[in-house]
Structures are given as C-alpha cells and as structure tokens.
C-alpha cells in the first residue's frame, strides 16, 4: 500500500512543523508572493522595542539576512498586524515561542522572564490588532434585527405570538458573547428567502378575510350522558377530579376557550395543585375506558386564568390555536381532539367543563384590525388602501414615511388590484414592506461626511425599544418621537422606567442575562447518565430560569448589582429546589418562586446566594461528567471580572503528553498546567478561581465528595455477573451424560446451587418448563429424545438470559467511588481561600471595581449593538463612577446608559 502523506504533528516534529508550515504559507499566500515587487516591511508600524530586541538577539541570526532557515525571514515580515500580510505568520511565531519550540535547543536560549515578556507583548499586540480590524470608529454599524428581535417585532406589529425565526440561521456571537453586534451579523440569499416566507406566513396568520366563523361548543354533560351505556346515570362530573372533552366537530381554526369549574379546594391551595389542561389529538379507534393510546402522546399544557366565587373555582384556559397542538401520529387518522383536565388533588370535583371556539374577543380579531384599521374611509377602497399602507409602513419602519415612499407602494397596490382581490393586493405590498432594508435593519441615516451626529427622535426611540424590549417602539414611544419630545432627559428617563415596568422588558432580561453569562452553553453539555442517573433534562430550563429571574428581580427592583456576587435570595422551581437539596414541596407547582435563603432549610440551598452559585453556571461550565475548574475559572475572569484570557495556543496536545493525565486528581492536573511554563502563563490567572467552585458538581448540586464511576469495581461486578461457560456447566449437570438435561438432573442442579428458603417444587417445575419450552412447543418434531428435556442449545439460551439479567442488575445500580471535593485554592494575589463562600467574600472585598466596570461595559455594548473601543473609555469610566455612587443599582445604570451621549449619537 502506498504511504499517504502524514499529518504533521507539532509535538513529534517540534520546530520543524513551524518551519514547514511557514514555508507553505510563503509558497501559497499571494500576499507574500507580491513581496517580490514591493518591500514587505511596513516601517510605519513596529512592535515594541522589547520585542524587536528579542527578535534580533534570538531569531534574526537564523531567520534574517545572513541565514534564512527554511526560507523564513522575520526581518521581512511586516509588523503591522492590523493590515499587514503577515499576521498569521506572526501567530505561528508566537505559538512557537510560547511552546518553547523556538529558538531550537542548540541555539542561544532566552530566560523564562524574557520569553514571558515577549509573549505577553505579542499577545497584547494581537488583541489590539483584532479590535483595530473590527473598529467601527466608535460608531454603531447599521445592523439587521437579530432573530429574536425579528420575532418580537413581527409579533408586536401584527398582534401575534409565534416563533417565526425557528429555521433561520443562528445569529453569530460577538467576542463579548452578544448576538446584536452589527459588525458580526451578515445576511445571505437564504436569509432573504427566510424573510419572504416568514412575512408571508405571518400575514396569512394575521389577516382574516370573510365573515366570523360560527362558534362551536361542547359540554362534558353531553358526553358523559352519551358514554354511560351501561345504564348508570350518575353525573361523571360529580364524582371525578378529571374530565375529558372528546371533540370530533372541533373548530379547525382560531382560539379555543375551555371553562372548567371545580370545587373541593381552597383558594390558597390553588398554586400547589396542578390545574393544567392538556390537548391531545388522534382518533378513538379502540376507545375503552381509560385507553389513551390512540391519542398522540405529545401534550401541550396551558395554564388557566382563575376566578373564585364561594366554594367554586372557575378556571379558564385560552388555547391560541387548536391546530397547533399537537402533531398527529402518522398512522392514526386524525379525527378528533381530546381536551383533558386533571386536577393534581384527588379531593377536587369537576362541576362542569365546557369548550367553545373559534372564540374571538373581537371580530375581526386584533391582528386583522392592526392592519385593516378602523377608518372613516373604509368604504372608499382606494383611499382606504392608501391609508392602510401608509400606516403599516410607518409602524413597520419605525419612522414617518415620505409621500414618495407611500406613493410608490400605493402604485404597486393599484397594479396588483387589477388582477387580485383587495385583501390579496394589500397583503402583497405588506410582504414587500417586511422584506425591505427599512424593516430588517436598524437604519440610522447620516450626512455625506459620515460624521458623528445626534440620533433623530425616531432613531433614538428605536434604539431604546430594541435595548429594553428587543422590538419596535409602541405607540406611546413613537408618539413622543413624533412630537420631538423623546430627546429631553425628563421624557427619556420616564420612558426608560415605563419600558422596564412593561412585561416586554422580560425580553431584555432573558436575552441579556443569557448572552452575558453564556447560559446557552448548557444546551450543548451532555450530562453523563452514568454519573448523574437522577438528572432530569427538564432541570436545564429551570436552571436557566433561576438566573434569568434573578437578573430580572435585581433589575426591576433596582437592587444593587452586587447581589450577583452574593445575595440572600434566589428563584427556584419545585424541581430545582429539590435538586439543590431542599425539602419536597407539594407536587404540581412548577412555577418559579422567590426563595429567601435565610429561611431555607436545605443545606444546598443555604449556599445559593448570587449567580456564582447558580447551577446554570456550573452546568454550562462543566464537561457533563464532572466540574471543570478551568472552564469555570475562565468564565469568572471573563464574564464577571471582564478580563478574558487569550485563546490557547494552537495544537495544544498537553493532556496527551502526560502519562495517565486522566487518572490525576484535579489538583494534580492543574499543578501540571503550572509546571508547563507556556500553559502556566495564562492558567495561573484563572485556574485558582475555578477550583473555588469544586463544591458544585457538573450539574450544580452541592457536594463535599466527588462522585466518580468506579470502573474497577464495575468491571469486577460485571465479571462476577458472568456465568460459567454453558458447555462446561451443562456437562456437569448432565450426570447421565446423554446430552440432554432431564427433570431430575435439573432439579438436582437447582438444589445444589440453592441457598436460603426451601424451594417450591412448583416453581422449579415452572422454571424447567420455561427453559424447555421450545421443545414442548415443537413436540414430536424431533423424536430422538423424550420431550421435556433441555437441550444444550436451550440451556445456553437460558444461561445467556440469566447473564443478561445479572448485568442489567449491575448497571441499574452502578458502583461509585468518592474522593473528597477540595475547594481550597490560592488566588493569583496569594490569597488563600476555601470554596465559593470565600470567593464571593474575596470578590466583594477586592474586585468590586473590576466587576462594576465589567457590568457597565457589557450593558453598554449590548445597548449600542457594537464592541466598545478605546475611544469609549471615558464614558465607561464616568458611568462606572456613577454606578458605584448609585450603590450599584442596576436599573439606575440602565437609565444612565440611555441618557449618556454615546447612546444618543450615531
């Protein structure tokens, strides 16, 4: 077989790889080839003197004018990392220096300090070059809506509530982890097509041509009468805590309202009792009592609105669109829906249960009237059409439209109208409005010079609403813009408060907390079912909600952001509370509630102050099997202290180079990092912080011992579950040696191996029959031996079965070994701490400034939709100072950001 080319390994070939890949770059890169015609050196940009001194002392003798080892001439590489052609080459140089591959062993060696210094300088130079390349000159780049902003905007515009961007390509994350950074966001033909299709679907959904469909109703009374065929006349609703409406003639479109009246429960107990209805679809081909199998197993549950009168509780459920729920099984013809109510408390009695639909509070529905607005011109089609279009454009584009723009769209409507209906002609124009750059982008017009300017009132209104609502301004905010009042600090401040108070500010809470803290990473961690057999995927959502609600509470109550580091409260669902080791609440109350930690009795819960103690953070920064001190440490210095470490050097194969690295304890592994100088340079800055989280396992449960799968014990148990080879034991049992096991031989064998309670002969007979079953079934097929014997084949099958059962028993109860969790650590400034409580105290004592500045930077970057630059530093400092003076109050900081000059200029 011919030898294929091998992958070059840095570890194997040491410096050679660097040389050869540099060579490859020199040969392949057109930028370098151009060097023949013009000198590569850009003399205007230079590395700092210490770097150049280092290069001429240790590198140039081999890679310079005298000798160009492997064709590499560092003196000819442009030192301009921002625009020069050699940034990649310098990266290879940095890696080689970092890993100690260069200078080669035989050559003159720099001291560790010298090496460290030059590595640090180059790293900083790369960081600066990266931000310079991305620099927007301190201006916000016109950006398209993120997928979530697109959704919210479309829903708010059309009074709908669906996820339109489900199948869009995901938004890219900026270096700070944000999705709304204009420089990073691209657009492609696919997305344009997505936008056309989503807009079309949304408008189809929103517009209701024609008359109001007839209301259909169903009452459980009628069904129960129908169902009691056996003569029983008792009213089902009087004796049961559950009810089902099987609805054959269900409404095909529109919302359904379900009214359930129950008694037997006190109002105070309502939140502890499950009172959801679920919706199932399918057909009742073989309905027996209690047989649900023919219905889809996928359920959608809906929470009720509750009103109470005397001892009766009225629960009202709104199902927005019956057809959405749920998907139908393919092999069961879909005939009817089942709306099922089941109370979590058996004392509840269903007094009545009814459903009606399609139920519209108004006709036409709100979504239709948002487009086909009530107007005195409604009778005059041409005038009305123009009014509709202009109004829609204004709302969708978040600004007044010019007469010319309105005229043009109206022209298109007119030409549509020649061949299509009124509604269709309008609809087609609206799709166009929703695919225009004016809708998809946050457009901020500029003068020809492109200088910094004040945002105009409508641009400011949009910037504010996209910051706090992830959506377009509402009528109040646009009204203030129309009147030109929005820029006045009084109005602006009042608007920030109003927007934060509105439910739509939850979108900001949800998005900002998730993006800032990197919560989405939880979704990509595969939790080991072996180490955490009790882990339930539903917890992931609960964990996310804990952090989001926490952030929302601090924001909405305008509390100190220091609560993020430590607090005396958190937000837990019943499930998460138990996961944290809290007491079991009554089941069926999934809602997240505020828990005061002083009152908390569970040991785990007492440790849950601040987001650093949230399971979401622990899980997102684990590997699914155990904690991950490195990830957690990096997370802390990056997301909390605002000092992200540089990327690790390429091709780190560290873990593989140390014999038995996997078997080392965490501390030993981290110690190994520090022994290797190129790793230690960065790792000593964050590993120690990560160790402080060691009392929390991969899924964020509190621990004092680390649970590991005991592979040796497991192997042992599995070994002992193995049976003797069937050929061997068969021979032993077959005492008469005829090649079959007779009943007496079998019984003797059972008795020999048996200990404990006396055997039941019936049982023994039963087992024998079972093993010999195949023979019994094939009676007469083989006459060479008597029936009711066990052949070697059957015996082997029996043994395999026993063995399988035994191994399954082993796996159902896996053996673990435990090592003490060690959260003691020495921080970079030599402070010795033990565990998260110490870390929190340390941060509050020594790192408040870094933390405060980090929050300011994150919020400001998100508010502006761009990365911060050097020129923003002054604003950052001012805001940080103000933030501290305001006792770190979060909502006050949001206000200050909106009021600052940066937010109001383009």
């Amino acid at each position, binding site marked *: 077989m011919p030898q*294929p*080319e091998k*992958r070059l390994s840095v570890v194997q070939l040491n410096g050679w790889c660097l040389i050869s890949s540099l060579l490859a770059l020199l040969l392949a890169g057109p930028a370098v080839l151009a060097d023949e015609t013009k000198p590569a050196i850009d003399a205007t940009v230079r590395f700092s003197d210490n770097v150049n001194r280092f290069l001429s002392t240790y590198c140039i003798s081999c890679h310079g004018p005298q000798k160009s080892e492997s064709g590499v001439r560092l003196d000819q590489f442009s030192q301009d990392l921002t625009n020069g052609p050699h940034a990649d080459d310098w990266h290879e140089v940095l890696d080689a220096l970092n890993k100690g591959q260069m200078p080669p062993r035989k050559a003159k060696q720099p001291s560790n300090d010298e090496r460290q210094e030059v590595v640090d300088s180059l790293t900083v130079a790369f960081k600066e070059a990266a931000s310079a390349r991305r620099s927007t000159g301190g201006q916000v780049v016109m950006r398209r809506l993120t997928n979530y902003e697109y959704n919210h905007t479309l829903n708010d515009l059309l009074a709908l509530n669906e996820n339109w961007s489900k199948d869009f390509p995901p938004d890219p994350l900026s270096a700070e982890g944000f999705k709304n950074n204009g420089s990073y966001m691209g657009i492609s*033909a696919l997305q*344009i097509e997505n936008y056309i299709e989503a807009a079309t679907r949304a408008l189809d959904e929103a517009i209701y041509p024609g008359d109001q469909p007839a209301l259909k109703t169903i009452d459980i009374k009628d069904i129960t009468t129908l169902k009691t065929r056996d003569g029983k006349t008792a009213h089902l609703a009087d004796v049961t805590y559950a009810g089902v409406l099987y609805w054959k003639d269900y409404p095909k479109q529109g919302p359904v309202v379900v009214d359930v009246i129950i008694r037997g429960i006190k109002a105070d107990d309502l939140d502890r009792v499950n009172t959801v209805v679920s919706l199932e679809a399918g057909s009742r081909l073989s309905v027996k009592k209690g047989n649900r199998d023919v219905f889809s197993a996928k359920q959608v549950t809906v929470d009720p609105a509750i009103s109470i009168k005397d001892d009766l509780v009225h629960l009202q459920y709104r199902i927005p669109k019956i057809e959405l729920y749920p998907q139908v099984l393919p092999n069961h013809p879909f005939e009817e829906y089942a709306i099922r109510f089941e109370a979590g408390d058996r004392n509840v009695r269903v007094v009545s249960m009814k459903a009606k639909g399609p139920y519209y509070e108004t006709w036409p529905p709100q979504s239709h009237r948002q487009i086909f607005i009530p107007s005195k011109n409604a009778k005059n089609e041409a005038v009305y059409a123009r009014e509709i279009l202009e109004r829609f454009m204004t709302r969708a584009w978040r600004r007044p439209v010019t007469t010319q723009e309105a005229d*043009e769209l109206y022209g298109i409507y007119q030409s549509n109208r020649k061949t299509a209906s009124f509604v269709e002609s309008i609809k087609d124009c609206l799709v166009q409005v929703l*695919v225009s750059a004016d809708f998809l982008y946050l457009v901020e017009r500029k003068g020809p010079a492109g200088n910094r300017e004040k945002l105009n009132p409508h641009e400011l209104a949009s910037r504010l609403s996209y910051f706090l609502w992830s959506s377009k301004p509402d009528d109040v905010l646009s009204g203030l813009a129309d009147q030109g009042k929005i820029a006045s600090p009084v109005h602006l401040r009042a608007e920030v408060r109003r927007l934060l108070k509105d439910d739509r500010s939850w979108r900001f809470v949800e998005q900002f907390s998730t993006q800032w803290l990197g919560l989405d990473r939880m979704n990509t961690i595969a939790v080991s079912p072996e180490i955490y057999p009790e882990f339930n995927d539903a917890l992931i959502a609960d964990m996310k909600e804990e952090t989001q609600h926490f952030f929302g509470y601090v924001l909405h109550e305008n509390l100190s952001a220091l609560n993020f580091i430590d607090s005396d409260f958190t937000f837990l669902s019943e499930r998460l509370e138990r996961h944290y080791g809290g007491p079991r609440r009554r089941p069926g109350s999934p809602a997240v509630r505020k828990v005061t930690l002083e009152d908390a009795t569970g040991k785990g819960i007492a440790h849950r102050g601040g987001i650093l103690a949230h399971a979401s953070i622990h899980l997102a920064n684990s590997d699914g099997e155990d904690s991950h001190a490195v990830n957690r440490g990096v997370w802390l210095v990056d997301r909390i202290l605002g000092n992200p470490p540089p990327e690790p050097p390429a091709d780190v194969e560290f873990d*593989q180079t140390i014999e038995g690295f996997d078997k080392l304890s965490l501390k030993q592994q981290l110690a190994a990092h520090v022994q290797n100088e190129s790793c230690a340079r960065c790792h000593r800055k964050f590993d120690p912080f990560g160790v402080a989280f060691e009392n929390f396992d991969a899924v964020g449960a509190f621990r004092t011992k680390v649970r590991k799968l005991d592979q040796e014990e497991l192997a042992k148990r599995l070994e002992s579950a193995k049976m003797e080879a069937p050929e061997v034991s068969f021979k032993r049992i077959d005492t008469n040696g005829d090649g079959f096991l007779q009943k007496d031989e079998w019984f003797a064998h059972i008795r020999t191996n048996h200990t404990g309670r006396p055997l039941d002969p019936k049982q023994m007979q039963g087992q024998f029959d079972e093993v010999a079953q195949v023979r019994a079934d094939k009676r007469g097929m083989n006459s060479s031996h008597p029936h009711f014997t066990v052949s070697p084949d059957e015996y082997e099958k029996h043994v395999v079965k026993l063995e399988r059962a035994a*191994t399954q028993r082993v796996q159902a109860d896996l053996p673990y070994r435990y090592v003490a969790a060690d959260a003691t650590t020495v921080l970079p400034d030599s402070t010795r701490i033990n565990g998260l409580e110490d870390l929190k105290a340390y941060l509050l004592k020594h790192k408040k400034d870094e933390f405060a500045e980090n929050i300011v930077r994150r919020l400001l970057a998100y508010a502006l939709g761009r990365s911060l630059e050097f020129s923003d530093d002054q604003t950052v400092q001012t805001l940080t100072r103000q933030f501290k003076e305001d006792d770190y109050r979060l909502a006050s900081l949001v206000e200050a950001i909106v009021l600052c000059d940066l937010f109001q200029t383009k």
Partner: protein
Amino acid sequence: MKTQSWQIDRRTVLRGVGAAIALPWLDAMAWAKGSEALAAKKRFCAIYFPFGAPTMPQGHPHEKWNWTPKEEKDGSYRFGEIMKPLTGLKDRVTVFHGLSHGRNMGGHNSADGFLTGTPVNGGGDKNTISVDQVVAEKYGKDTRFSSLVLSLDGGIGAPGRSSTLSYRRDGTAIPAQSNVRRLFDQMFSAAAQKKLVAELKRKASILDRVSESSRKLSGKLGKRDQAKLDEYLSSIRDLERQIQKQEEWLGKELPDIDPSKLSLDATLESPKEYLQSMFDLLFLALQTDMTRAATFQIGNQDPGASTGQLPLKLGMKKGQHAMAHYMKRDDGAAEYGEYLQHITGLYGGFLQRLKSTNEGSGTMLDHTLSLYGSSNGSSTHSPLDLPLVMSGGEGMGLKQGQYLKFNNDVPLTNLYATMLNQLGAPQKTFADSTGQVSAILKG
C-alpha cells in the same frame, strides 16, 4: 403506539433489497435520452450517523460487532456483523481504519465538520465548504437541484449541533429536508411544481421591488452602513439568480414517478418506513439526475433531539447516544451493533439499486461515489479513528474492495481532497488536508 420487537436478520436485509425491486422503477436510459451523456456523470453522496461504531479489543466476545473487518492470515478479510449487509458488495466497498479529523474537532460538535474538516465548537466559529457542495458548485448548474440535503431533524440545527451536513463556501449551513412528502413533491409532483411557479414569480416580483426601494437608501448612509446595505442588496441578487435557475428548470419535463409504492407520509414515528423512503428518494433523485451531490444525516448529535430516540422507536432499549456510551460494556456492542447493522442494511440496499441500474456501459454505482460513516470514533465520541466506508465510483478511477489502515496521522480531509480530484472538482487543499490518499486510486 406499540413498537415492534427488534429483530434484524438476513430477512430484513433482503427485504430492503426486495422493496427496492418493488419500487417505482424507472428506466434511466429512457429518461436521460442517450447513454453517452450519462456515462460521463460524476456523483457524490455522503451518509452519516452520529456517535461512532463499536471497536472491541481482539478476542472480546463481541468482537464480531466491530466496524472493522476481521483479517485472516492470508491477508484477506471478513466483514463483521454491522457490515454484513454489504457482503455481496465487498469488491465495491472500501473500509477505512484510522482516518481522523484533528483533535480540535471535538466530540459532540463534530457533525458540523464531518464533511468540511473544520471544527465548530461554539457560536463564534465559522465553518467552511463541505465536500458535497464543492461537487454541487461544479455540476449544480447542470441539474434541477444543485444538491440534495437530507437529515432526520431537518433545518440547520445550532452550531455544534448541526442538523445538516452541508455547508456553502462562505460557511453558512444549508437547511436539510426531513419531510418525505415535501421532498417528493419538490422533485416529482407536477402539481407542486405548478404551485411553485406562481410562488417563484411572486418572490421574484417582491425582490425586484424591494431592491429598487432599498437602493434609495444609498447615499444617506455612512461608509460602513453602506457596506451593510451592499451586502443586503447582493444577497437579494443572489436569491434572484437562484430563483431564475429554478424557473428555467420548471419548464422542463418531470420524470413520471408513481408515488403509490413510497410511504410519503412516513415520519420518525414509523422509523423503518421513514428511513426506507428517504433512501428511496435519495436513489430516485440520483437516478433521474435531479442532482449529483447529496448528503443524508441519520441523526444529529444533540442527545435530546428526537432523532437520538430513533433506536427507541425501533424498539431498542436505549437512545443512540446512550448506546454509544455503553458500547464497551457487556452486551453494549451487540445492542448498538444491531442498530447500526440496520442502518448499514439500508445503505446496502441503496448501493444494490445503484449497482443494478444500468448506465452507459456500466451501472450507476460506477459513477456514484459514496461515503458512509460517522464523525466519532469511540465510546467517548473522540474524533479519531472514524468508522468510514467508501463505495462505487470505479468509473471515475477509484479502486474499491480494499481494507485500508491508517494510524490517525492522516487527516480525513486528504481522502476528501482525493475524492474531489476524481469527481472532477479538484481543490488545491481541502480544509486541513496535507495531501492525497493515493491508495484509493486505480493504479
């Protein structure tokens, strides 16, 4: 719904082939009007499953469930249980051992990079072009669809949890199709095509108007904003070009395929019919020259995704992710192996159909190079020593019927680069490729 008991035996495999014969059969010769044109065709398809395949140590009771063949002293080799469905095609199939993506590829995030060779470990990482799309760039203009992208989950998934194998040159994911009926309609239904004509006209008209009105923003923007607007306008032009191409094809005659033999309504809830239908459509698409580049991702790497439950729906005890983790334990290899054997059986049926369809002086298999395998190697989902099988394409100078062993020091992308050469779409390098794998070429 009650799940059927899990049984895979020779009959299942035979049934796969049998179904193929019973299917709407189409005379490729008649359809393509002239065999010369067909003989020159070069096609590529890739079929993927997540989480790897068993590799048990020598002498282990479940060694027979290994992906890799068993070698005899005389240098010959026998297929194990998983590969058994391909026994009849042994001389048309090459098995690889020890090819790998680099370690950077990661484990759980490797489907994104399976055909691109580029690791995508988080939201920020940018992917690169996949093998099939290089082929699509080359031949896509000659066929109705430049490529056919299938997966069980459909769409594109999330970075690191891709539910498509195909990526454009700019690194954007191509959404996969998962709905059998929609796929059929798109390719073969005249009624659906008619509707599509109207839809395309509508889209083209909207694009035309939108680009005109948006152009008016020019001159009212700063320099960077102008660049963003240009990007938007050029995306519109791209889409216009795509629509134009689709419209051109819509005028052309469609092959007449009788849908009654296909289970067009099958979904994952009836996994056997569903998988068979997807393979049927894959075959029909190639046979009728709808496309010459296709990918099919049989499950993505999100353990929670519905496709991870595919084995459960087939009646097995664990999801695929759990099975892969347990494959080194007691009967884990046999359990997982049975599942993979079923998938391989479907792939085998697909190859059989290619082999029994004449094309030019040979068969379709001679002109269809396919890759079958996973982006994970072991029970820990490592990206090394990937289970990979290649087949067909002898008409493009490929040599099959080999067992090739490497030592994890050859990037899988070298194989891709070599394949692309033979497919007539040579690339200077492909992702991290360092050369060619000349062993797969006819001497």
